[in-house]
């Protein structure tokens, strides 16, 4: 029997102020978006071997192109238990009918609930808001008008291929929108949907317009990074449902069947650095969550003693899952991660941030991946007992490796052990530096009993979910439990090096851009590929979404948001469409009848409504985006983010108070970058500069960001630099630079060769 599912389960669209041009969301980690035509059909390279990657992020008027979230239907059956894309014309079945797929209807419902939701305040509300917790726009009693609710839209792949989430309600729905006359920008649409020629759905988000309904002297103004009364933006999210129309030869009639469950579209701000991963991606957060809370891979994380024969927890069986969760769960100590697939992409990342901030670019490159560095993959990737042909150091040289520092002297090794596994101290040193569970608030371990790394800051040294207040302080980011587990296995030598095993070729493997570049093989890879380009922390509130994504209650199953199906599904059932003998060209939403506006609250038992994921995020988004460069974290006491020595006239405390300027997430919000200034001898010329110069880190700057966000440059991997993927970074070496900043857009496409460099044809 066949099952039909929409993938990706969560799709990411991104705003842009170009109302005409757009591209398709990347579907592989750290991938560039795909170019498409005006109907959303992907452009193929000249030899048809692959997609054309985007090289211009702005349209001819200098406006940012929107990123479309593309959804498609996969079929799961005996032939392909892991799913394959469904195509028009394929044989399908369902609901007791079978026939040829002649059309796909898509139903999308986007909304924005930010302005009626609770005020965002660090981690408050992560496990439910108290009844008296303050709302945004608390003085407004008509709460419904604060929700931007354009109503649902339905399209098909034949005669009704576009719809807009505008004020019109499409003639059948009483839409609610903010009043017109917002300053500086009105919001008249949350975006639009369309189908491409293959029947796939494209969701385009808003135009990045934000405005305040408060008038008068000094208005509009911004006075908070996340909560600003009177303000709206055009970010949104909501369910995506599909209905398959088949022509049944058996009865000579059209029959309908719905896919198994809705998917979800999330609209976010632009990804200005598409090719650099965040230290933790949303994919990594969710994978870890599903392993631990959904028994996603019981051979990796499961019941103690069950790993020889991993158990299966039936999907959707809450009782079995609760039983499993209540058992003695642990990580499989025999699990061997792969170095280049699993370990190296984590360790590779921090060095990339030197292209995005002064702090790292001008330091002594602590994440150096060259031969002298602490992060040389050819050393830290060598498995115990493997004598590496390319190893240039003798075991006795190791003690002279300055990068080992105190860790080496602190680690006593027998000589024979040392020769068998010469790089064990390097691995252990890196692992010891990692912030573990329970150390979220530790800047460094100092001289605590059992200290692993004396007086060195723990890593990652990035802001955590709450470096601001004293309620559930979480000063620093830490890796997920899964990441820490596989890194521990690696540190202990329990890992596989694919090069040693001959699975990958040292000469050609892109060690210094270690991401898969081939299209996702199945629906699950598509789910994960899309999410890998979204931010996985810190959540304060975050990039695309906040901490709500790690709440198991919002999922129907891994990678699928639990939807309130009374809002997500087509208004008439597929069986009713069969009964009505409805022609596929007619989309029946006229029986639409609703007796409740979109909810002001959550109902996780029923499922999420449109707008329920993005409502936690800052309003307007530009305020938080602008401010999320660095945060000065008070590290005087682990448990306290704010202390008040002045209140007690505590001179000692004032004297001993310690602060650390900490980055948020440079790959989502760069601080500095090399900027393209011209070409010389066919090579790019760049200048190191503030990425968002002219927009200061103040509330006035936040307001300016509302106007100027689209003028910022996009930072890409230098297409002119040879062998960039197989040679290590040597510091700020120009392998990334910013293009298309306002006023310099013409520099982006100087040379027709560039296209060939970004999109090389297949080698023949």
């Amino acid at each position, binding site marked *: 029997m066949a099952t039909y599912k929409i993938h990706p389960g969560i799709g990411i669209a991104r705003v842009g102020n170009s109302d005409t041009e757009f591209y398709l969301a990347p579907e592989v980690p750290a991938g560039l978006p795909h170019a498409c035509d005006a109907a959303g059909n992907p452009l193929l390279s000249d030899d048809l071997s692959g997609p054309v990657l985007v090289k211009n992020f702005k349209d001819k008027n200098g406006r940012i192109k929107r990123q479309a979230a593309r959804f498609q239907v996969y079929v799961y059956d005996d032939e392909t238990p892991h799913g394959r894309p469904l195509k028009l014309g394929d044989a399908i079945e369902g609901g007791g009918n079978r026939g040829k797929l002649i059309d796909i209807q898509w139903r999308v419902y986007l909304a924005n609930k930010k302005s009626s939701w609770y005020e965002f305040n660090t981690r408050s509300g992560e496990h439910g808001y108290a009844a008296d917790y303050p709302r945004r726009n608390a003085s407004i009693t008509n709460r419904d008008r604060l929700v931007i609710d354009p109503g649902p839209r339905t399209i098909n792949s034949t005669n009704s291929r576009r719809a807009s989430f505008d004020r019109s309600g499409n003639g059948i729905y009483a839409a609610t929108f903010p009043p017109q006359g917002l300053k500086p920008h009105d919001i008249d649409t949350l975006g639009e949907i369309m189908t491409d020629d293959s029947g796939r759905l494209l969701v385009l988000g808003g135009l990045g317009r934000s405005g305040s309904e408060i008038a008068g002297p000094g208005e509009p103004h911004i006075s908070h990074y996340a909560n600003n009364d009177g303000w709206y933006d055009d970010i949104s999210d909501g369910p995506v449902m599909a209905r398959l129309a088949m022509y049944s030869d058996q009865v000579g009639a059209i029959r309908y069947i719905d896919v198994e469950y809705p998917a979800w579209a999330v609209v976010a701000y632009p990804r200005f650095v598409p090719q650099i991963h965040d230290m933790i991606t949303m994919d990594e957060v969710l994978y870890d969550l599903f392993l631990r809370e959904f028994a996603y891979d019981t051979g990796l994380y499961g019941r103690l003693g069950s790993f020889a024969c991993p158990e299966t927890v039936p999907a959707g069986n809450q009782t079995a899952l609760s039983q499993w969760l209540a058992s003695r769960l642990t990580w499989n100590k025999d699990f061997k991660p792969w170095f280049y697939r699993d370990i190296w992409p984590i360790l590779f990342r921090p060095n990339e941030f030197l292209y995005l901030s002064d702090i790292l670019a001008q330091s002594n490159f602590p994440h150096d991946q060259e031969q002298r560095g602490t992060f040389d993959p050819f050393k830290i990737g060598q498995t115990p007992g493997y004598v590496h042909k390319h190893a240039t150091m003798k075991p006795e040289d190791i003690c002279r490796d300055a990068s080992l520092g105190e860790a080496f002297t602190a680690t006593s090794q027998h000589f024979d052990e040392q020769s068998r596994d010469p790089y064990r101290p390097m691995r252990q040193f890196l692992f010891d530096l990692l912030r573990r569970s329970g150390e979220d608030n530790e800047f460094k371990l100092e001289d605590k009993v059992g200290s692993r790394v004396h007086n060195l800051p723990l890593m990652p040294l990035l802001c955590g979910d709450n470096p601001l207040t004293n309620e559930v302080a979480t000063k620093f980011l830490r890796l997920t439990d899964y990441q820490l587990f596989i890194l521990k296995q690696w540190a202990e030598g329990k890992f596989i090096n694919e090069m040693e095993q001959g699975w990958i070729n040292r000469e050609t493997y892109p060690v210094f851009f270690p991401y898969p570049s081939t299209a996702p093989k199945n629906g699950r890879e598509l789910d994960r590929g899309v999410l890998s380009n979204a931010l996985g922390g810190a959540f304060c509130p975050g990039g695309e979404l906040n901490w709500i994504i790690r709440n198991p209650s919002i999922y129907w199953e891994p990678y699928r948001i639990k939807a309130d199906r009374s809002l997500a599904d087509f208004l008439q059932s597929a069986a009713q469409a069969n009964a009505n003998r409805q022609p596929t060209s007619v989309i029946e939403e006229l029986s639409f009848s609703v*007796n409740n506006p979109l909810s002001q609250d959550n109902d996780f038992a029923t499922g999420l409504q449109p707008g329920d994921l993005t409502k936690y995020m800052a309003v307007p988004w530009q305020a938080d985006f602008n401010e999320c460069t660095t945060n000065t974290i008070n590290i005087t006491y682990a448990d306290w983010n704010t202390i008040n020595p002045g209140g007690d006239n505590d001179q000692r405390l004032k004297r001993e108070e310690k602060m650390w300027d900490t980055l948020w997430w440079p790959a989502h919000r760069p601080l500095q970058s090399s900027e393209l200034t011209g070409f010389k001898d066919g090579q790019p010329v760049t200048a190191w500069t503030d990425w968002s110069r002219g927009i200061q880190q103040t509330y006035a700057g936040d307001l300016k960001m509302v106007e100027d966000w689209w003028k910022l440059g996009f930072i890409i991997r230098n297409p002119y630099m040879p062998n960039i993927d197989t040679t290590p970074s040597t510091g700020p070496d120009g392998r990334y630079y910013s293009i298309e900043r306002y006023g310099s857009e013409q520099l982006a496409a100087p040379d027709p060769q560039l296209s060939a460099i970004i999109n090389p044809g297949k080698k023949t």
Partner: protein
Amino acid sequence: MPTRKPPITRYGRVRKILNEAAAASTADYGGTGRFWDHGVKQLKEAAIHGVRLLAPEPEQTKTCCGHTAEKTGCASGSASMLVRGLKGEAPFDGSRFPRLPWGGKAVSPEDIEFISSWIDDGCPEDDHLHTIEAGIQHCETLPVRLSVHEIAELDLAAKGARAPSRPGELRQRGNLDCMDEEELKRLGDAFRYLYSLNDWPEDIRSYNNQALIHQNHCQHGWERFLAWHRAYLYEFEQDLQDYDPDIMVPYWDWVMPQYRPDCAQDGWIIPRSFQAFLTPEQAEKLIAGLNPSPSAAQKNAFKQLAEHKRLFTSQSVFFRYVYNTIGYRHVTPQPDDANRKCMIDALLASNPFWYPLRFPAEYGGKTINEAIHYHYPSASDIQQILSLNNFRDFGGGSIYDASFGFLDQNPHNTMHIWTGGMNPYYGDGKSYEESCNTACLPVQHNTGEQRNSMVRAGGRHFHSRSDMYSQPQYGDMFSNLTASYDPVFWPIHVNVDRLWWEWQRLNPSATPVELDAILSPWNYTVRDTLDAARFGYEYVRSSHFIPVGLNAPIGRIISKPIPVNTLTQGFRKAEIRLHWVPQLIRSCFIRAFLNQPGADAKTPLQGNPHFAGYLSIFGHGACYGGPGHCDAPPPRARDYDHRTRNHNTPRNHRIDVTDCARKLLATGARELQITIIVIGADYEEDVDLLKLEGVSLNFLD
């Protein structure tokens, strides 16, 4: 002597296969290198990254019951990690490791099979390719003790008689096609009783008044469909039970093979028990009532119909047979034709489930697919519908999106249209000589969707003779207004209810939206109908009860062989149930065997195809109370005894015997004979312990 080239050993061939596949790969397998190249002993021990490629030899271990048992995960070839790895199965599916051999090409399925069977044979080192022979396994004949002869085989309960109903015990709605003549007769008598009450128009119990409830109140096309009909079936079942308390309404499983769902017009069309036939007595009456009297040959032909119980799916098929084959031509389709009336009377008297205003599968010579654009439901259709994951898609939408569910819209509507059908003799002046094709009016394109407006209900006197003789355009099942006047309505809707009951187990929390809505004309709410157990029934394909009696302990229970016909054999689950077992003073095991009447405590369990399963019962131990403290309580509590359940309330037990029953039936058994033995703590039979009311064998769908 000529030197003969030594033939290659099987191990040598294994090495060759793997080396050819590995080709130039330099993979070192976590340090072990080409683990297959270093001899059989090393290969048996080989592990890559902690994964043993060949599992260790199975150990003979003693289980707690004193029997020898093989350790699970034995060294079979297909289960070995080497073979899994060559096939690219987990963990060699690319998640933990790539497919074996690393860096080389995949091994062909034939070669993998060769390696697998070599492992199966214990990885011999030096046997040669041409000497392989399949080993012949000698089975010892199972020891049979003769001491059981004196134990009589227990009879099945009389057909149609049910297990005594005890508090909390559900009763079984069974499969119509698995019912025998006796059961059908009892059900038919109850139907006739309700028909007879039609003479008192004010009697709410009469068949017509029950059918009128559907005419006036039935719910279709939205979420109340399933709930309303569950209550309706229960009410009707109670009505039947007023006449015969053992009656449970049966279900018609439309997708069973005899209906040939893919070409349903060539299958049974409707259950045989609902088709027209003549009893010998009615055949005589018919012959006597015809005017002019039929010829001797014709009389004989009528008698033959009864003798062979020839079945007709509808009156039109019957009358064409009489007219064209028997050759009795003094009959026309006219409603007032006296001979036609006589014959309809005889058919009605012969079978209480037959209904003249029913024209199944008749659509003017077309198939239902062609005429109505609906298709007869198949097993895979039902599987698809059962896989729907929300109530609206399965059972219909709420008031705000009043939408059909798939179960309602497709198989349910289709079965109404299928059994109703179109009367080929609608209209005037036709003769039974004409084939049905010419008499039919063209079918409107949307007949299926407008089925409820197709039948006239007003002005009719249902179940009156004049109504039974009429020639309407459509069968009564075609429309909701008239459907339940046709008795085939019930088994169809019981099956719809059964499918909901099945689906509820798959989707325990999926419910209609409005749970507090009243289901008029009763006082049930939708919520009240969610749990079918509240109405006291479950669904089984068929059930066979063997009364034992609580009077004395029984050491061993051997049933008479229970015939299992082909219709019953497609069961999903087979269960032996022990009914109403009082607390036992000592602990014991109950072992169940099928078709091994001589089984005793020494009968092997391992490898014995007749061993069906066991359960253990904890003994209650000696009573610490005074006289009467541990007496079994009365079957029903006294009035106003609202205390919690008595600690000695007898229990029911179940043993799942699906695998054993299925295997025996698959190897030719046509009967199943139950043997139950009671094993005490000393692993000997305990003949003075178990008491129970009876044993049953149940087949579940």
